[in-house]
């Protein structure tokens, strides 16, 4: 057989193998590099990240729970002592949250429109109870107020909680001047005049009001502001639906 013809068969076999390998390689790579595999990769990556975040969150919760357990175990030697400590914690938490009644020393602040004040005729229309009350409440909290309530003209009283809101709702016209005279505090309408009661360190709270010249500022608006320290302020606990709407994860399945 001629050398060229002798070569034909092995070369043909190897060429066949080459063709087979080329096809397998190209079809494998084409299948792997399609959009679905990229999508799968991204989905898996996202899931892995979510799982990682969930894992971190759970680890944090476990650490917090362990710390809580350690605190509980160290609160007393007997079950009775520990139970008492837990109940005390519960009472403190409820008081801090504003859902438990509270009493003690503090300040009573009244805000009422006074037509005899020089600023009334010009500035009462600029009085905005939503802003003023929120400002006042923040000043009092900044000085360690443990509990605050806002009371209206007819005795309506609302205890503030951590997610409370104060909104202007009603305008009143007196002598041709309109101003907001009612606010809504956590779904309760409270008309002016307002009485704000704050339990806490009275001298500190009074000091911040003096430093901010709060009384004079109110008088400039035509609002009479009287700040009275008291040793026996009683605040009712918040008993309504907890205010605050927030986004929640829903199960669509």
């Amino acid at each position, binding site marked *: 057989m001629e050398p060229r013809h002798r070569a034909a068969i092995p*070369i043909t076999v190897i060429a066949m193998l080459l063709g087979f390998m080329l096809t397998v390689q190209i079809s494998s790579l084409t299948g792997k590099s399609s959009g679905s595999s990229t999508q799968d990769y991204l989905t898996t990556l996202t899931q892995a990240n979510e799982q990682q975040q969930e894992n971190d969150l759970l680890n944090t919760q476990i650490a917090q729970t362990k710390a809580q357990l350690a605190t509980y175990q160290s609160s007393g030697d007997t079950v009775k002592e520990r139970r008492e400590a837990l109940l005390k914690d519960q009472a403190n938490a409820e008081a801090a949250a504003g859902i438990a009644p509270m009493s003690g020393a503090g300040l009573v602040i009244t805000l009422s429109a006074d037509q005899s004040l020089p600023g009334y005729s010009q500035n009462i229309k600029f009085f905005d109870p939503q802003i003023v009350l929120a400002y006042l409440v923040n000043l009092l909290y900044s000085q360690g107020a443990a509990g605050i309530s806002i009371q209206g003209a007819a005795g309506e009283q609302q205890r503030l909680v951590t997610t409370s809101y104060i909104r202007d709702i009603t305008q009143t016209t007196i002598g041709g001047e309109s101003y907001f005279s009612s606010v809504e505090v956590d779904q309760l309408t409270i008309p002016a005049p307002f009485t704000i009661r704050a339990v806490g360190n009275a001298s500190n709270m009074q000091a911040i009001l003096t430093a901010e010249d709060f009384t004079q500022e109110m008088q400039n608006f035509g609002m009479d502001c009287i700040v009275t320290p008291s040793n026996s302020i009683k605040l009712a606990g918040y008993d309504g639906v907890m205010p605050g709407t927030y986004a929640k994860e829903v199960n669509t399945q």
Partner: protein
Amino acid sequence: MIWLPILGLVVGVAIGLVSHLAIPISFSYYLSIAILASLDTVFGGIRASLEKTFDGFIFVTGFFTNVLVAVLLTYIGNQLNVDLYLAAVVAFGVRLFQNIAIIRRIMFNRVSHRNSKESSI
């Protein structure tokens, strides 16, 4: 007889298409190197055939040895985190171009030789 290797190539492609065989992505790297080694062997065989020095045994053993060594080199490179496959790519690539150049020259010589023969007649 040039049509026979081409036919073999076509048959190989057809088998690959019909079989629907797909390899894992981690092995495609090795197959790429094996394909390069096969190409080198095939062109080496064509060159030897044209030079009338073809030996079937050397050709077949050369094919399998080249493929195995190239794949082994790639595997070792992966284990050592060194791009050893580049050695195979360079060696096969250079030889591939050399073989193609020699095949081209031989083909040209034959064609020109045939033309000069026809013109002398």
